[in-house]
């Protein structure tokens, strides 16, 4: 077990290195760089830039260096000094920018996960036990709709519906009066009043897929001999189902924990943009669009590291559960 763990952790190092390299190179692939975009936007707004200035800026930002030199400076800064570089657009250190938005992102991801679990668990159990009942069909129908509608579209429809019917704008996480206010009871309540919409939108597809998996796994178990035996021995039906087949079928719930980590950073980029949520996703999207490469590269690197760690955790859990994996 220990040897397996060490091997896995050692393997993470080249993986993360490769992720950082690829991330950095992919960001540089589109033609032009951050300054090109900036300059043409400035020109359209009546602020033309002189060629000398552009050249000086390119030098100052290190954009005149070959890609590999830029990469080397970035990665050594991270490894040696924990410095992820400066964001060109925000003109602030990248790590500050990412941290500032992590809190709310973490909260929302966690709440969404809990919401998904709470809703999909009973529905999954119910629709497996009462297979082909009216309730099962209704849940399945809604589930497929939830799976099929892209989150951002659902968000737009709900936003527009709320505006049309109730005349309110539900975008954002806070009302205007609480926007810049310090934390207080009122602000927390205000946050809760705004939070349900992103929860529903972000949770919709998760609920749909998780309850379908739950249903399928449970159906596999329900007709196995041990269930029949238990029933024959006279266990009460609900106690029987919850104690034996449900426990076995619970695997997908546990394995979603591993996916949560990267979701914390990238979580629902487009949905967050549409709902105007101050999360990390929209910032990542904008950084990619404007080729703000240190910000974008650091985001992707962090994402990659979190994915690798998440995979490691689920591998360890699996190895503990299943001895065959350990010795392969």
């Amino acid at each position, binding site marked *: 077990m220990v040897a397996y763990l060490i091997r896995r952790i050692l393997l993470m190092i080249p993986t993360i290195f490769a992720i950082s390299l690829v991330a950095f190179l992919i960001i540089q692939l589109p033609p032009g760089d951050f300054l090109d975009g900036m300059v043409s936007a400035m020109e359209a707004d009546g602020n033309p830039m002189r060629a000398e200035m552009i050249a000086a800026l390119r030098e100052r930002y290190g954009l005149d260096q070959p890609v590999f030199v830029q990469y080397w400076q970035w990665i050594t800064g991270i490894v040696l000094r924990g410095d992820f570089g400066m964001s060109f657009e925000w003109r602030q250190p990248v790590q500050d920018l990412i941290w500032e938005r992590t809190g709310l992102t973490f909260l929302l991801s966690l709440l969404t996960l809990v919401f998904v679990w709470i809703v999909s668990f009973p529905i999954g159990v119910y629709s497996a036990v009462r297979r082909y009942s009216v309730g099962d069909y209704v849940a399945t129908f809604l589930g497929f709709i939830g799976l099929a509608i892209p989150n951002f579209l659902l968000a737009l429809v709900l936003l527009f519906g709320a*505006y049309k019917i109730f005349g309110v704008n539900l975008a954002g996480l806070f009302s205007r009066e609480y926007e810049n206010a310090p934390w207080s009871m009122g602000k927390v309540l205000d946050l809760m009043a705004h939070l349900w919409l992103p929860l529903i939108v972000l949770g919709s597809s998760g609920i749909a897929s998780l309850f379908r998996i739950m249903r399928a796994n449970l159906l596999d178990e329900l007709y196995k001999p041990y269930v029949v035996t238990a029933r024959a021995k006279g266990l009460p039906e609900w106690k029987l189902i919850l104690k034996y087949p449900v426990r076995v079928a619970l695997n997908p719930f546990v394995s979603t924990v591993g996916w949560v980590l990267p979701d914390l950073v990238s979580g629902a980029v487009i949905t967050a943009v549409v709902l105007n949520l101050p999360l990390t996703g929209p910032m990542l999207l904008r950084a990619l669009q404007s080729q703000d490469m240190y910000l974008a590269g650091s985001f992707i690197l962090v994402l990659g590291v979190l994915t690798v760690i998440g995979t490691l955790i689920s591998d360890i859990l699996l190895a503990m559960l299943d001895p065959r994996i350990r010795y392969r």
Partner: protein
Amino acid sequence: MRRIVARVAGSTLALAGVLAFPLAASAYQEAPMLAEQVAAGALPPVDERLPAEPLVLEPREAVGTYGGELTFGIKGMADWVLLQRTMGYEPLVTWNPEWDEIVPNIAKAFHVNEDATEFVFELREGMKWSDGHPFTADDIVFWFEDILLDPDVSPGIPTGMRAGGEPPVLTKVDDLTVKFEFEESNGLFLQYVAYARGGFEMTSFPKHYFEQFHLKYNENADELAKELGFSNWLDMFQDRSGDYMAPWRFRGDVPVLLPWMLQTGLETLASSQQVVAVRNPYYFKVDPEGNQLPYIDRAVYASVQDDEVLLLKALNGEIDFQDRNIGIDANRAVLYDGQEAGGYRFYEVALSDMNTGIISINQTIPDDRKREIFTNKDFRIALSHAINRQEIIDIVHQGVGEPWQAAPRPDTPLYSERLAKQYTEYDPDLANRMLDAILPDRGANGMRTYSDGTPFTFVLEASDAHGLRFPDAAELVVRYWQEVGIDAQVRVMDRALLDQRRIANVQDAMIWRGFGGSLDAIVDTRWYVPVTGNSNFGIPWTQWAEGEAGGIEPPQSVKDHMAMYREVALTPTLEGQIEKYGELLEVSADQFYVFGISLRGPGFGIVKTDLGNAPQVVPAGGDILDPAHSRLEQLFWKN
């Protein structure tokens, strides 16, 4: 009684629109929120904060009342220009709201000599930055000597600041007077000061704030730089002054001369959902009754990440006065329907754009055989006649507009019917006849070939920028060309790549925005005469004129045309410049460098109905800072 009388300059450019009126002694009034601070001893009284001769702004409708907030929707840090365009326009002299005259602003008067080589600006006695520190000629001298002329701090001198290739000499006549002296005439200098870039640089560098970052004034600047995490003072100074581009005034701690001042820097949008600017207690403008402006207490910039969310905010009445990112054609119908519920009305944005797309054929293309065709004026005329402009208007632009070449808009003093309308009629037969004289041979597919049978093809490059649907228009254009046997293709690409290609002079043809359709044609000359680096039909010609690398000597007719522009720059008055530029445009019509598609329709913005002194029409364009030049400091809430 004390009379506030603005001195009228006795030069050719007299200032206008200033009233003389009586005032009770020490009778300026201020906003309640400032009166509280004065009562608490945190601020000096209003009479001491205002300059001796404040600018008296005649309101559009009525004298207003104090209070309230003005909310805009901003798309993150990258959208900082919104601040510049709403609260950031206070140059020495400014355009009037109608955009047809330059009037005094921070300078209470200005004088220009006969041959437009000397420009004198008189500042206001007792005028102060937003922190109460006096604003004097020293601030302008600081900007000029330690920023503009220092090649380490800001490399290169902008064209508008040069005459005969040289920057002017700036003299501090006294504490309140500065004089710019050019070696040659620079008749466009006042316009340069009044437009976007030139003006706000001069009045945005408070010396008493920035000198702490400059080694010349602070011998410990290098240590300060290390403390703040920079490698040396220059790095720090460049960062604090915004790397020549970013909004240094919008950092939050920099004193300003603007109506509102930011409480926190724009960069805090990274973690918060809005930035707020409060009234500047030292703002130098009053209304005719002596009330210090602005009327509105706070300007709020709410962060939105998506245009649809911005639209929703507008529909919901959360946006008070804005066209940026809202006034696009796709939003027009839904916003129109939502007017009553949202409590807003439309205002017209009279864009200076004169076209929905200018097609430029590269007349300096390196390929010799192609260049011979491309430089043939009849070839370009034939291509222009081959385009069915009405169909493009109907399909792409919802039927708005009329066939139009690269020419100033009809309601401007520079309008020339010949330039606007020549060769716009759809006549494929004529086009075919003209092309038969140039490229008579055709290949097996019916497309025209060179005389040796090799196919004649070229690419029209387009980028989906500015919301003008260039790729759609380009697709239609090449289809019309193919009908007259010209094998042209569209290539849609990213704007950055398009930019790289045109600067490298490798593009055959491209479609781009019709800038400069109003008075700004005089400064944005790109489609009329190739004197700046944006004339995509002959960028190397302008490089030749500037003596830059990569230049190609233009034909004599183009050289003569370029010389005509120098004549415009030698003219001191706006009227004279308009006349000279009109003559230049006639030659543009003869040269027919580029051709256009259709006249761009007016844009729109939304404004809350109970916002007083709001304009009905805002002249707009790339160079002028709309809607700020319509004087947002006079807006007020009626209820």
